[in-house]
């Protein structure tokens, strides 16, 4: 069994990476003094995986939008009852979520860690789907989708992604549509499961109050090696560098217009994208963070309010930078940001602002190593990006340079590749 200890001198913390004989990678970070243990069992599959095959399949299969999320819901049901009922006996608080490119099953507990971990590692490895249970879930997920249909923040984001991307499946809703999930059946779910839920496409991460030996005991007992490793081939989608359309608007039951203004970045690979995400976070702070001259100008003009913020969205082969908030004049906000970005691209970033924003980002990143949930999330994000050391992210912030910022400005913040999404009140 391969076992590597990874330490951070900056934080006085360490994590252990173990390659279990079954083939499963485990990333473990015991945190002294905490009451909670937080465990995630994550598969490298999400809503963007809409076409795929394994080495044994002759042809690609194209699956309905939202199937990864549907599968996540259905995994909770086994032949011997549902997982929530099993957790009820240990007191763990369990959940799961599906993102663009990951599906995570998780629990938090304070006692009876070993039993809860056993439930997690067991139910995610035992699919059980029937026609009836799939039908029942269509009703529940249908209501989840309808709930998001009423969520202005959600709509403004997906409208933006549809404006930025022509073909990339990041433009589709994670839960799919009421129509697309109606096409899902038990056989498609099994195919999806067999492709993505194999040990070399998954990782177990645990942070907080637990004992490493307990994890090993449970893994030895529960995890059976896969019959053979699966090689996944994902259908390649051609995505042009340019955006799909510069403006998209929708009317909605909201009080004031909501907007998201995004710059489309390059495809990249998971490792580069994770590093660039951090650099772009510093850069977005320099451009429009609350310490920037631009933020002040817009705030004083009354065109942004305290809901204004930025986010860098990065995944397996996509990334974009998004500025969002509520505004009476979203077009003016977009214009101001574009002009400021164009100026910085010509003149370079201000050294003093860079230093301030690097420090602020450093402090914020430290925060991610203090909560059990975020440590588990960080370990799995870093692992799927092809890295082992989650503390390396802190070094990326600490060692960032103005040259890197100027380089990223040219690559990832091209005003020609930006789009604006607005959700307007009905009466406007």
């Amino acid at each position: 069994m391969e076992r590597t200890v990874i330490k951070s001198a900056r934080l006085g913390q360490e994590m252990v990476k173990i390659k279990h004989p079954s083939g499963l990678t485990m990333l473990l970070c015991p945190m002294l003094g905490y009451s909670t243990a937080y465990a995630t069992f994550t598969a490298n599959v999400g809503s963007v995986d809409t076409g795929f095959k394994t080495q044994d399949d002759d042809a690609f299969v194209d699956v309905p939008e939202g199937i990864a999320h549907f599968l996540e819901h259905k995994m909770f049901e086994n032949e011997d009852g549902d997982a929530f009922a099993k957790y009820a006996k240990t007191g763990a608080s369990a959940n799961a979520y599906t993102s663009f490119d990951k599906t995570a099953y998780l629990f938090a507990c304070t006692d009876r860690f070993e039993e809860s971990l056993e439930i997690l590692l067991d139910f995610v490895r035992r699919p059980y789907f029937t026609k009836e249970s799939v039908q029942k879930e269509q009703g529940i997920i249908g209501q989840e989708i309808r709930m998001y249909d009423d969520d202005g923040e959600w709509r403004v984001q997906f409208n933006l992604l549809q404006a930025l991307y022509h073909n990339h499946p990041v433009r589709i809703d994670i839960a799919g549509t009421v129509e697309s999930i109606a096409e899902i059946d038990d056989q498609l779910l099994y195919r999806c499961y067999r492709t993505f839920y194999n040990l070399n496409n998954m990782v177990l991460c645990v942070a907080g109050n637990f004992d490493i030996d307990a994890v090993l005991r449970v893994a030895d007992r529960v995890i059976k090696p896969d019959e053979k490793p699966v090689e996944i081939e994902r259908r390649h989608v051609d995505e042009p560098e340019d955006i799909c359309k510069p403006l998209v608007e929708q009317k909605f039951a909201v009080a004031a217009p909501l907007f998201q203004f995004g710059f489309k970045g390059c495809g990249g690979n998971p490792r580069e994208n994770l590093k660039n995400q951090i650099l772009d976070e510093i850069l977005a702070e320099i451009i429009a963070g609350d310490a920037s001259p631009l933020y002040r100008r817009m705030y004083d003009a009354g065109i942004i309010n305290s809901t204004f913020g930025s986010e860098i969205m990065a995944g397996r082969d996509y990334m974009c930078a998004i500025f969002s908030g509520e505004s009476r004049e979203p077009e003016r906000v977009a214009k101001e940001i574009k002009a400021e970005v164009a100026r910085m691209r010509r003149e370079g970033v201000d050294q003093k602002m860079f230093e301030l924003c690097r420090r602020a980002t450093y402090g914020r990143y430290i925060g991610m190593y203090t909560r059990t949930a975020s440590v588990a999330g960080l370990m799995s994000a870093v692992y799927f990006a092809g890295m082992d050391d989650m503390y390396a992210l802190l070094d990326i912030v600490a060692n960032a340079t103005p040259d890197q910022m100027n380089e990223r400005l040219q690559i990832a913040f091209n005003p020609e590749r930006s789009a604006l999404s607005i959700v307007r009140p009905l009466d406007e």
Partner: protein
Amino acid sequence: MNNQFQRERLCDGVHFSSVTDSKFKHNRITANLFLKLDRAAVTDNAIVPFILRKGCRECPDFTRLNQRLCELYGASLSCDVAKFGGYQVLEISIYGVDDRFTLGGEAMVEPCARLLTDILLDPNVDTNGVFDAHDVEIEKQQLIDTIESQINDKRVYALSRCKSIMCEGETIAVDKYGYIEDAEQITAKSAAGAYRRAIETAQIELFFNGCGNPETAKRIFMEAFSKIRRKPAPIETVSTAVRADQVREVKDEMDVAQSKLVMGFRTGGIPDRRAFGAMRMMVALFGGTPNSRLFTYVREKLSLCYYCAARFDRLTGLMFVDSGVEKQNKQKAYDEILNQLECIRRGDFTDEEITATRMLMQTSLKAVGDSLGATEEWYLTQIMAGATLSPADESALLDKVTRGDIIEAAKRVTLDTVYFLTGKEAAQ
């Protein structure tokens, strides 16, 4: 250095509390000003934290203040309004990394505590003690935006609407951000008056939570408050009717895809701690966990919704059930919700359900100490309720709750208000 919750009086109506634990890497220092909810004063009070956030005498420029926070490793200075039972709370907090985790070994607790006291007690006012008129105009518009945007999140909006209808005319129905018609009347002078009254009359709870030295913050607070003259108003318990005489039904129409059903219940006046623990357990068993009655029957068995949950407000003794359903399923959901409550009243639930509910509640009680925000909220709620139970005390209390106690609790509950937010007829 770890210490359990400690609270001491600094001066008239000003208390300082601390909880420290070396496992953390941050400190959270807050000042909470408790003002009795008052329809006439609530809006002027609500703008105060937002104006204070713009600067202080020492650092009057908003952008310079935000840059100062960047220098403090992205410490976040948050000024907002909360509601605890019958009280409006002006919250000023600063959250930053501890001295031990800065890149250059800079001190953090001292400058953070000092900045917080400057923001709170030494604002940027003119010789007449009046705020900058331009700042007030901007924040006035922002406050109006905040009030208006409460309709954006339909789930939260529907809950709050139900509560307002249920407690119409009572103190606890007053909105924490106030009212648009009053916000339009705010002037630099009226805001300054509200500020002075708050500093003079509010009960002030100062809180230090983290891994640093609370004595540093306490010393700075003592010094600053020694210069202030105060006439604090004592905390009163605010009560609402304990039983409903009849059921009131209200329907609103809005442009929504999914309807929201909210049911407000009164819980009959809770005589003692044990009954209180029983009520909390009853509500959790009814609809507070993924194994609860509402989750199991309304969501999983009938497949009517994505969420259907019950929550208990410990300061007002009100219980709310909310669910997102299709319009045509409202009656089915309504009937099943009441049917499940009836089942609990009849004692038609298993001992396993009791054990599972208790364990899950105890897990979340134990987890309180792992989060700075949750710890502070826990103790502020205790202080408001005139108690100082720790999460562990409450956990022990739950151990004593019996099946009979839960049945008794369910019998005390009466339905008061049914609120339904639904799509417009024409839109269907």
